[in-house]
């Protein structure tokens, strides 16, 4: 009997050695250690053995079973591992394939630019204050110190409406008086964003509709030096920490002193390129100290209160930052343009 056990053991070991792959191993197990398997069936021999022989046979049979179970377990683990490796190997992808596109949208480039501006000025305490597009000539011009027929009016060709005295605002400065009358006598720090309109030929460089962001600060302790400092900090946050600013004397009816602010060209770092027309400087905004007449029209006593204002063009900023060469793209709403931002 013991001999038969040893023979079967030998047979089973050989068969296990020969079995390759999970299926063959599982078949081997069925045939050997399963309920109908050759080794399992040897248990039956126990009944036919004498009481003296039985313990030795039983012990040996258990040893054989345990040995085979262990050998099987080891081999199956190897086989499973190999199988997994094969699966992984077969599943290799070309990782450079383009991905499946999600359905996505984006905010308009001007929304994005305005948000950048809101954030930078917001950090300095300037809040957004919005006023109307369709304005009175009084708010847009007269109260801002543009008398009728004054040459300054020719700087801004207006769209007039069929209602006398009602125009489309030519600049967001039109909201200055509204903000002042609303805030008086509190100090003011606001940005006035919005759509403006000028009766200009639409070309790659000029639009009849454009956005502006006006900056307005009013208080009893605000100087031209503060204007320079505030705008220089703005320029550095918006265009890079190493930007230089240059202030040139200029003219706006509603500010005095008035200035244009240039920043050192961020494309050539001031060395000169075709974007800065080889001057090393980019014109960014017009600014100045709020004219006493305007302060008075807004309700603030110009002997006691001072203020500054600046006007920025979000399209100009976007054009410079992204190299956009045609201003008409902003309202053309071509997805091929909009999807680039």
């Amino acid at each position, binding site marked *: 009997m013991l001999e038969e056990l040893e023979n079967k053991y030998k047979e089973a070991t050989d068969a296990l050695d020969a079995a390759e792959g999970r299926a063959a191993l599982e078949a081997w197990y069925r045939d050997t250690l399963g309920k109908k398997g050759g080794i399992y069936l040897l248990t039956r021999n126990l009944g036919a053995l004498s009481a003296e022989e039985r313990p030795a046979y039983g012990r040996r049979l258990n040893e054989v079973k345990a040995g085979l179970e262990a050998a099987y377990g080891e081999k199956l683990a190897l086989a499973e591992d190999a199988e997994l490796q094969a699966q992984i190997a077969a599943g290799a992808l070309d990782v450079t*394939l383009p991905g*499946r*596109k*999600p*359905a*996505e*949208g*984006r*905010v308009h480039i001007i929304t994005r630019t305005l948000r950048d501006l809101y954030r930078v000025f917001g950090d300095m*305490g300037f809040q957004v204050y919005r006023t*109307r*597009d*369709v*304005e009175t000539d009084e708010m847009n011009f007269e109260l801002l110190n543009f008398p009728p*027929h004054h*040459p300054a009016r*020719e*700087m801004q060709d207006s*769209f*007039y*409406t*069929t209602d006398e*005295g*009602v125009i*489309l605002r030519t600049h967001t400065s039109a909201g200055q008086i509204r903000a002042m009358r609303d*805030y008086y006598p*509190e*100090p*003011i720090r606001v940005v006035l964003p919005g*759509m403006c309109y000028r*009766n200009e030929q639409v070309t790659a460089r000029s639009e*009849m*509709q454009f956005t502006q962001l006006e900056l307005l600060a009013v*208080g*009893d*302790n*605000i*100087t031209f*030096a*503060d204007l*320079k*400092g505030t705008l220089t900090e703005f320029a550095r946050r918006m265009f890079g920490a190493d930007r230089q*600013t240059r*202030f*040139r*004397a200029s*003219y706006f*009816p509603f500010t*005095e*002193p008035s200035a*244009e602010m240039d920043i050192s060209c961020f494309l050539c770092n001031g060395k000169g390129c075709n974007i800065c027309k080889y001057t090393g400087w980019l014109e960014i905004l017009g600014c100045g100290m709020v004219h*006493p007449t305007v302060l008075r029209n807004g309700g603030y006593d*110009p002997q006691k209160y*001072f203020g500054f204002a600046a006007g920025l063009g979000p399209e100009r900023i976007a054009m410079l930052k992204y190299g956009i060469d045609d201003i008409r793209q*902003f*309202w*053309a*709403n071509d*997805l091929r343009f*909009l999807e680039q931002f």
Partner: protein
Amino acid sequence: MRVPLSWLRDYVDFDLPIDEVAELLTNGGLEVESITAVGLPGAELEWDRERIVLGRLLRVEQHPDADRLVLATVDYGAAETKTVVTGAPNLFPYIGRGDLSAEGLFSPLALEGATLYDGHKDGRVKAKLKGRPLRGIYNDAMLCSEKELGISDEHEGIILVTSDELRVTSSDRSSPVARHPSLVTPDLPGTPLADVLGDAVLEIAILPNTARATSIIGVARELAALIGAEFRPPSYDVVMDGPSIDGRVTLSTENPELNPRFVAMVIEGVRQTPSPYWMQYRLRLVGQRPINVVVDISNYVMLEVGQPNHTFDYDVLRRRADVYAPGDPIHIVTRLPHPGETLTTLDGATHKLEPYNILVTDPAGNLSVGGIMGGLESEITDGTSGAATTNVLLEAAAWDFINIRRSANALDIHTEAAYRFSRGVHPSLAMLGARRAAELLRQLAGGTVAQGIVDNYPRPPEPVVVDLDPVYARKLSGLDLSLDQMGEMLARLGFTVENQGDRLRVVAPDHRMDIEGPHDLVEEICRIYGYDRIPSTRLADTLPPQRSNVKLEREERVRDTLVRLGLQEVWSYRITSAAREARLLPGAPPDDRPYVTLSNPPAPDRNVMRHTILSSVMEAASNNTRHAERVALFEIGEVYISGEDGLLPDELTRLAMVMTGKRDPRSWAAGSEAKFDFLDLKGVLDAFFADLHVEIAYEATSHPTYRPGRTARLLAGERQIGLMGELHPGVVKGFELRVDRDQPVLAADLDLEALLPLIPNFYRYDSLLTYPPVREDLALVVDVGVPAAAVESALRQSGGVLLRDVTLFDVYEGSQLPPGKKSLAYHLTFQAPNRTLTDEDVSKQRGRLLRLLEQQLGAKLRE
């Protein structure tokens, strides 16, 4: 305003590179837009200092073998003279006149190797001068025309002038045309031509408050102040030794408010010759064509001192007076036009006059539009009467600048005179301009100036006096300067300053018509101090109280939500037309609410402010369907609705969305080819409102913009906040969308004024439950007319607290159901917060639900 550097040097000394001059002026508010060099480094044609020099003409001989060539011998400062073969016609008169050195005739001489423009070719073509024989005589140099040097297109002859003509002889000083640091004597043969005629012209932008810079002396005064140099105005002295003007000319001004001053002088015996070369040269540099000495002096004085002036033919005026008042003086009257009066200007055009166009007239008729342009009848023409000389009546006047501006625009005449007068010229300048022009006519044209000046100046304006408080100046500028420092800077600009200890009393000079108050003086101080030297400081003022900005924040949130849901934001023109918008209402009466209408529209189809934003988004969608397969757009912005009363329209914020085309973006690994349909838009809106935590109900409705049967109105409680649905095919056609037949175009149009306030600041979250949920499926059969929303809402209302979720998963209509019925199948999720639900619990709930739904909607369980 074009300003040659050499001309500036007549009034201010400076020794700075051109770029620095330009930068100083630019930073000081006179923006130099361009610099055009002539002959100097940076010029299109730089004159070689070694090879293009001043030559003195010594001798002119006929070429032995060519009738049309001469041999000109020239001293150019070298040991040897140079003989040049040339065909210049202006040398022919000198043939055979022997030694010409005493004549002092000069011409630019180019030597072999110099680069010039080819005088015989059209346009400007550069060529290098090479020696070659000309009719047997070897020639390696050239006397140059203006064209060859790039000065003008003149190629009739060479530049041939006396040394006097190279020199400005116009003022009491004589200064060289170009004063180079090495200080040139222009009659020294061999001097590099660049040192004699080389120049740089600054183009300066004139702002409304820099009218003072529309003259060379105006710019010189600014430059002098900026660099702290002395400003030397030209002399206004006149030698008057002709017969008195008294009894020959009288003046009356009917509208002194429009014509505050009128100055007249008489200059007799003026020779009608070309003006001297230096004057012609300067006029050319600033872009004016020299005509003759009278016209050139008039223009020169306008450019130099900024006073436009006019020369009438005195004899013509006299002949007219002989008719209207024989034996009496010429009578000049400035007045407004008679009804129907017309005027023919120098350019031959006849103008209908506006009632406010002020005229210079005599009793026989009109002579000119004051301050704008002269009339044809009294023009000085070359050799009118065959006489070699002319008698001139010189006018220099002052005009109201706003009236000139209106008039020039109405007449559409934009002369240099109108340009200056419409920006403001102080009446005091009229006298200076007249004296300057008269003296030049005497000096350069041989005229005799009549004694006396007729000057009608009834109400000279008061000088502008401003007190400057140093505290105010410091508070405005942030600069801490002493009164003396400030006073010195103002004095440099021509202000009269008196330090009163606690303030400056400042009198503005006449040319500063822009000065109104102390703020203007602070700008002057900042400018002269240098904007760049003013410190940059951080705002130290009190921070204003911060306000909440709910509407903007919610608008931005709406943008972010829609972008996340796959829609692209657009921004459109807000100027549109009724016809563009009417495309939204096919077969329906047009929108009859009044528009905000432009009186000067940019185009016939852009003449009103929009009433609807959906039309804007549809235009964007239409353009994109030409190239994009997937179009999903939205816009947030204002529409403009004229109110019943009040001047200004309501500006109301709206949101519109349009979706059409492929649901999934094109990709090689594309999912479906399916196109957007009603349920895509519905899904976006459902997710949108869920994100905003606003409860919205949909209700079937009809509207001309949308396809019948696929239109819903959006209700927040009882209030309609918008419409959504598939667009009516007529709308799709009207906007010319390039879409397939039957391809749905979905749209929604929401009133953000109504929606945004509904977004809650606070809402409760549902606790996450730990006891296991039980899921049940339930198919209900109802009449087809019962809306799904009604079934779902009945389920939710009837389900009690244990029913946590209801999800529709199938809709069926067809042969397996009786006609007129449909089946809606739902996943129901039951869950209790405090225990595990039993089958019994759930079946009780289910039984209750079925009973209630049957009662409410006639719903039956589908077998």
